[in-house]
């Protein structure tokens, strides 16, 4: 029980730390981390294994999310490179469990997009399983078009929203 609280605390400080960093994303906006209170938190604790911060530091932010073409769910070369990087991490830390969140852009009907998000999350999951990550460590969830990261109604925004994002649970 105590370990869990400690982990949660580390996560909280790690999130605050993440808010201070101003890494320029290669091609995508940062994941929806709360950066409304950029107060510097003095801490000496390194991100705990399996925390989102630890995962992102290890694989790189850009590698934590794969993107899909309109209505598609296939893993292309770029996606597979990202997922291989993720698989390295999850092989290195076999106790880490994680969620793959599947999303769709707004240009689809609500129910179909829920099913499409689930299909995308499962594509990424199946690829990781093929790389040796046990399925039991991977949870999938679809948010359909309910949680966009890019808010415009244009091709560029939609491309950023058609995604499967890996989020660690620990």
């Amino acid at each position, binding site marked *: 029980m105590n370990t869990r609280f400690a982990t949660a605390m580390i996560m909280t400080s790690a999130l605050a730390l993440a808010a201070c960093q101003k890494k320029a994303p290669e091609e995508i906006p940062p994941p929806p981390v709360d950066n409304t209170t950029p107060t510097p938190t003095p801490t000496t604790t390194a991100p705990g294994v399996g925390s989102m911060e630890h995962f992102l530091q290890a694989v790189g932010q850009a590698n934590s999310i794969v993107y899909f073409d309109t209505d598609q769910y296939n893993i292309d070369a770029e996606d597979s490179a990202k997922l291989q990087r993720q698989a390295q991490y999850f092989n290195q830390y076999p106790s880490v469990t994680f969620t793959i969140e599947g999303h769709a852009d707004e240009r689809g009907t609500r129910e179909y997009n829920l099913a499409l998000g689930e299909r995308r999350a499962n594509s990424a999951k199946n690829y990781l399983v093929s790389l040796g990550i046990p399925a039991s460590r991977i949870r999938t969830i679809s948010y359909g078009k309910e949680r966009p990261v890019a*808010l415009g109604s244009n091709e560029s925004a939609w491309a950023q929203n058609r995604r499967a994002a890996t989020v660690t649970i620990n």
Partner: protein
Amino acid sequence: MKKLIIATLAFAASPLAAQNQDLGEPIGEGQEVETIEEEEGLTGSVSFEGNLDDLGIAIPAFATDRNAPTPANANGTEALGLELARVITSDLRNNGLFKPTGPDSLPKPSFANITAPVWSTWGVRGAEMLVHGYVRARSDDRLTVGCYLYDMALQQRLVAEGWVVAPADWRRAAHKCADLVYSRLTGESPFFDSRIAYIAETGPKDNRTKRLAIMDSDGANHRFITTGRSTALTPRYSPDYKKLVYLSYVDGNPRIYVYDIGTGKQTLVTQSENPTFAPRWSPDGRWILYSMAVGGNTDIYRVSAQGGRSERLTDAPGIDIGGSYSPDGRSIVFESDRSGAQQCYVMNSDGSNQRRISFGGSRCATPEWSPRGDQIAFTNSSSFNVSVMTPSGGNVRTLTRGWQDEAPTWAPNGRIIQFFRTERNTGKTSLWQVDLTGENERSLPTPVDASDPAWGPILP
């Protein structure tokens, strides 16, 4: 350090507490409405032969035998009589039906005149039809409301009916009167005395709060069912209005719940770790259709509304989702991307004989069978318009032209279609409706943004 731990504990505890706690206070079921025969029954045939849009209808205040106190109105039955006539007038006017003139610009008939109109009073007002009515408080607190439709040219009663309602249901009596007038003059089935379930939306586009809400067909008696702590989507009223099925993320995953309006309790539609979407009722209320994704592959299942084992109806690779029963319960129209893109298919209610019906070159999504059986409404998910076609896929007509219109739902009589419209960039949503003819498009006022409308049948 101790302080921090306590703070963390509170943080960790709140999401747990939120689980299964998204429901607000139970709202309770409505009461039955008792229909009473007005003496003499039906007489006469309509004399008017012009366009029904031009038919003038005078709707003066309903009379009362004596101004009695009633829980339905702080000023008693006399004031209630005025409100009844106003509701009827709004029903007809807001739906573009006839040319109604409401009680605020008309004289008040006396109680005795309800069954014996003073023709000379109304003849000078240019109305072809006259609605009269009365309201009386009963000794048991309930109300008796009578509704009479007269043809001015014939000076004859066309139809009369009365209802006994609980004070809280007084608006239902007005809707029933509007339905009586509408049905008598058009020959169509009624639709005003019905309710709508939908999703109320607030907040920014990337963090919308989505709550299950219900309201009468005219937007009155609005109530939130969930608190908004977790996302709720795609509700459907059971045909008897006793339950709602809808999708909730209350346990962190998208799952279909059956919410019992009388008890305020809800249960999972199926005990499964898999996500479930797109719930639908059969017209007799005995079955619930839902769609479930297993390993990313979504299929349609049906389960008895009483619970029990689910039966899988589709097994094509790809997304099979949704489903809407024909009024006779024998067929189901559903959506599938088995051909590569969203298209509409029809199958028998046991899943046999699956065949594609949409071939127009556009995508077909969220098909909904008309309660009359003669049309299927759907979302054209290439252009995002609401369209209709015959059950064999013919005579496709586009009814709406918004930037993104989706999720059609039928009025109980199959003459009006509601849907929701999403605004470009802002993501703001609103409810709209349009006639089957493509005319009389209008937005429905809701307290906040709104999506996923589901129009229930005529209230029991």
